[in-house]
């Protein structure tokens, strides 16, 4: 197994610096929200996690399409890695969203379109792993997994709009805007924080997917023997 590529090592170290830096910036250098208080600061990481999760699932669908075209198993390893990391990021978004909603609406779960869509996406992609574990030959796993990954990502807009539409017809009791709404009237510092969080999470996503890809490659070679 080839030694870990240099770039990946640099990326790891870079992230070890950037993540704490972004935390410091969010906690200390962004203004406190007038009504919600400090908890609003979770918003940056919450949106960044949801964004990275979404990016993963789109990457997984593209890798799946590439596998169906080229029939190289490398594409399937990438698709599998992207989905696994995508589920992890989506879980981050879900739990942070719940903790954020707690003080505002004193319920753990609020049927906010974004949060609900993310939860359904987690269900969709948990089914992806169940499907893969039910299949025996790697080639079939790759082919059916890729098809499912593509169908999965195609239904996300449908899911989001149906829930948003459902929300507007049955508004939640305290309609103070959903967790993401307040994102638009943001001061420059808040925008910088959001930008930092998004880019840190995108780098983190690339790093984790790359590591998971190498693990998938290793596991696949082990099975070959």
């Amino acid at each position, binding site marked *: 197994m080839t030694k870990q590529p240099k770039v990946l090592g640099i990326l790891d170290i870079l992230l070890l610096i950037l993540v704490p830096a972004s935390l410091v910036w969010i906690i200390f250098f962004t203004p406190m929200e007038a009504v919600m208080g400090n908890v609003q600061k979770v918003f940056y990481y919450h949106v960044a996690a949801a964004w990275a999760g979404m990016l993963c699932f789109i990457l997984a669908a593209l890798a799946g399409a590439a596998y169906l075209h080229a029939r190289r198993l490398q594409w399937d390893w990438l698709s599998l890695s992207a989905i696994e990391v995508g589920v992890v990021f989506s879980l981050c978004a879900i739990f942070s969203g719940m903790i954020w909603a707690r003080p505002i609406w004193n319920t753990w779960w609020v049927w906010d379109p974004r949060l609900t869509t993310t939860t359904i996406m987690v269900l969709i992609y948990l*089914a992806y792993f169940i*499907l893969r574990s039910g299949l025996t030959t790697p080639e079939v796993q790759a*082919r059916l997994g890729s*098809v499912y990954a593509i*169908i999965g990502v195609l239904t996300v807009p*449908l*899911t989001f709009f149906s829930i948003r*539409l*459902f929300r507007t017809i049955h508004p939640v009791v305290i309609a103070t805007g959903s967790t993401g709404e307040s994102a638009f009237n943001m001061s420059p510092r808040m925008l910088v924080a959001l930008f930092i969080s998004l880019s840190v999470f995108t780098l983190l996503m690339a790093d984790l997917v790359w590591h998971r890809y190498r693990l998938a490659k290793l596991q696949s070679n082990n099975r070959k023997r």
Partner: protein
Amino acid sequence: MKPWTRYLYMIWLIVSKDIQVEWRGKQGVPVMLVFALLIVFLFNFALQLSPELQAGLAAGLLWVSLMFASTLGLNRSISLEVENKALDGLLLAPMDRSAIFFGKSLSNLFFTFMVALVLLPVFSLLYDQNMLHLNLLLVIFLGVSAFTSLGTLLAALSIQTRTRDVLLPVLLYPLALPILIASVEASRGILSGQSKFELQSWLFLLLAGNFLFYAAGILFYGTILEE
């Protein structure tokens, strides 16, 4: 025979074969119907639905029982083909693989729609609400069509796993959630007297779902079935 008429003729062959097998074996629609009614009674006792409250839930209950019943139909339809590898027989036929997808999903749609047609009067009696609107039939047709096309596609996936058709609900329900939401909301709107104009957005969602899942079926059914 021109290519188009041959394509439609093939689809018709598959649908008529499925109807013939169903007519002979009578294992499909009756089972789905009994299962749907069972679901309704279970929910009635489980949720202690009081009569006046039930009216609002009629649409939701109708669609949940339809969803579970059509899952039975989807599993039966695909295991019918896999039984003696009759699916290979269809793959051997001189037609594009998407014709098999169309044939199977239309036959699933036909059976589930039959069950829905029987369920409607029963629901009307149970919840003393006249549910025999033309608009409602249109919504049911669109919703069931989207659901069964996606279900046919995923059934071809789940049948290849070790646990065969056990996996279908796990794969199908999260993906079909928007269809369920749109169908229930549209049906509830119609039952509470809203005109089709007000339900435009739901109908558009159902159409989008239909278009998406039939397109996915045409694109991927061949890839799923080929070894």
